């Protein structure tokens, strides 16, 4: 089994992983909105968060929570990995189909890891 390891400190927010992920999963197109990995900027802390799509959910959570990272509070829904109807990401914009990271197939061949110039993404065997 593998997992993707994220080093947030190295990410420069370039979205190349998003283009690579979408290109891998669709025929001859680039569309970051169909990527299974998304990057968001935290302007206050001047850093980037990478979120990799996890399992899907059919309804928004009823209890909301905040996540505290390095003393800074974040809205849990922004950082959640789920494909959720409350948010536009991890859902195909045109069809509504839920998206989930599949490590780019079997055997795993993560394209996002391949293109990340800054080494923010790596493969971890578990």
């Amino acid at each position: 089994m593998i997992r993707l390891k994220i080093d947030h400190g190295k990410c420069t927010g370039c979205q190349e992983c998003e283009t690579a992920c979408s290109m891998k999963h669709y025929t001859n197109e680039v569309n970051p909105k169909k990527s299974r990995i998304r990057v968001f900027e935290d302007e206050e802390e001047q850093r980037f968060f990478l979120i990799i799509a996890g399992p899907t959910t059919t309804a928004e959570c009823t209890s909301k929570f905040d996540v505290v990272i390095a003393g800074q509070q974040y809205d849990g829904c922004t950082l959640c990995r789920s494909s959720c109807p409350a948010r536009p990401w991890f859902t195909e914009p045109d069809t509504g189909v839920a998206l989930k990271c599949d490590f780019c197939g079997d055997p795993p061949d993560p394209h996002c890891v391949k293109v990340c110039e800054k080494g923010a993404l790596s493969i971890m065997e578990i």
Partner: protein
Amino acid sequence: MEAWMGKILRVNLSYGDYHIEEIDPDYLRPYLGGRGLGSKILYDEVDPQVDPFSPENKLIFMTGPLTGTGAPCSSRYMVITKSPLSGTIACSNSGGFFGPELKFAGYDGIIFEGVADEPVYLWINDDEVEIRSAAEFWGKTTHETEDFIRAKIENKYLAKEIRVASIGPAGEKLSRIACVINDKNRAAGRSGVGAVMGSKKLKAIAVRGTGKIMLPDKEAFHKAVLHARDVIRAGPVTGEALPAYGTAVLVNIINEAKILPTNNWQVTYFETANKIAGETIAETILKRPKGCFACPIACGRLTEISDPQNTGMGSPKYFKGEGPEYETVELMGASCGIDNLAAITKANYLCNEMGMDTISAAATVATAMELYEKGYLPEKDLGLKANFGNADALIILTEKMGKREGIGDIMAEGGYRLAEQYGHPELFMGVKKLEAPAYDPRGVQSMGLQYATSNRGACHVRGYAIANEILGVHVKTDPLITEGKAEMVKTFQDITAVIDSSGLCLFVALATNFLYEEIQSLINAASGAGYTVDELVSIGERISNLERLFNLKAGLTKADDTLPKRLLEEPGGPKGDVCRLNEMLPEYYQLRGWDENGVPTTDKLSGLGLQ
């Protein structure tokens, strides 16, 4: 043809409506996209004699075929219009994420016509296009504008996905050095394009796109991308220097070459340059490098400073933002005799928030300082003692310029108009009324020719000969001689026009041997258009000539292809030389196929299909 979206949004602000136009492939092909296509449209649709602030002037936002594709550094869009600063054709380039988002929304570009009655902004969410009121945030900074537009969107997660390009108070007040800012800190900086946007009462464009860019063969494209990234990684400038230290890595290099404009170009070496260099930025104020869309270099600098002086903008204690870049840190620094990095950074943040070009703003402050020290600009007009080295003066004058308060009112018109008002236009360091960037041609001759002939005035990113003359990127040349420089400048200018039209960032050409073949392979892999290298070379030449024709029709002449007196007559630089423009200019005209007055010959024009 893949890669292009094939559609342009034409918005008439006077009527408050828009329609979508298909791009004719035959019209597009000889101009590629971006700068080329935008300039062609401007040339065909706008009388070059037009008053830049009149409704007849148009404001064009244009991406290139590679924009958004994920090719390395494919973040770029251009803003094309007639410049209110120089009266020439203006096309300012910017990165970030706005350009790619526009393509994902389904458009290669937007043409704005007319003038709105009331302040508006354009909202684009894929097919949903709307001209909305901007009354609530007219007068706000570019940062506040972006936050405001996001806050108005009901779904706060969707709000995270929009990208905004806007103007600040400077653009609203028609400052001739106003820029367009996108993604808060990226600027389509030069030539006053922000003022044209302000004259149209267009405060911002907000865009979200969920669509795709088509590729003919994704495997082939992916291969071309990986190869181009290898080339970029292997280049010492693009693979090491820029990622580690940003563009300000140039400060020490340019200072060592003794071509670092200091005290408004009176001197070309700055004793304490290291205090404002990229290395120092990395050690002190840098929080993190930031990349534009799909950029493996990430030269952008997210920085934070303790506030050296509270001027009432932003939060009182800390300041965060992006920058400073080389030109900014040099012109606000050495050229103003200032080595206080925090003050420079703050003035940079102010420019981003107020929507002013940092090069023009800084150079205008430097001009004011020389006028003041020589006794031409009295303290009572300035409201302070603006001697070189006065960091407070830099910040205060920058803010006054943005708000057009006091002396800031004339300074907002740019360095030329300031120097002229006070009777000494010779102290303006620029060409065609555009303030010069930070390389002194007395020690790098080719840059003198480049400043004199660039179609938008004194500009470094229309032909970055520094790449060879100083950095030796492709081949190392002797910067002190004039032989061969006409050819070099022409070559650089033309390839730059191609890069600016493709949607790539000019920095790809700072990778060793990233030349036409690399650009060709990316464009063809993304579009299937099958461009030959010869075709691309002629596209570059065609764009250079088309822009020249626009300028000639606008009333510019050979007399405008010159340099400030200081560079032509006062010795400076490493060997105490002047810029020997007269040794290069006639040869340049000849190589270009222009007559002795710098007018393209009929033969040249028909060869390029411009007749």
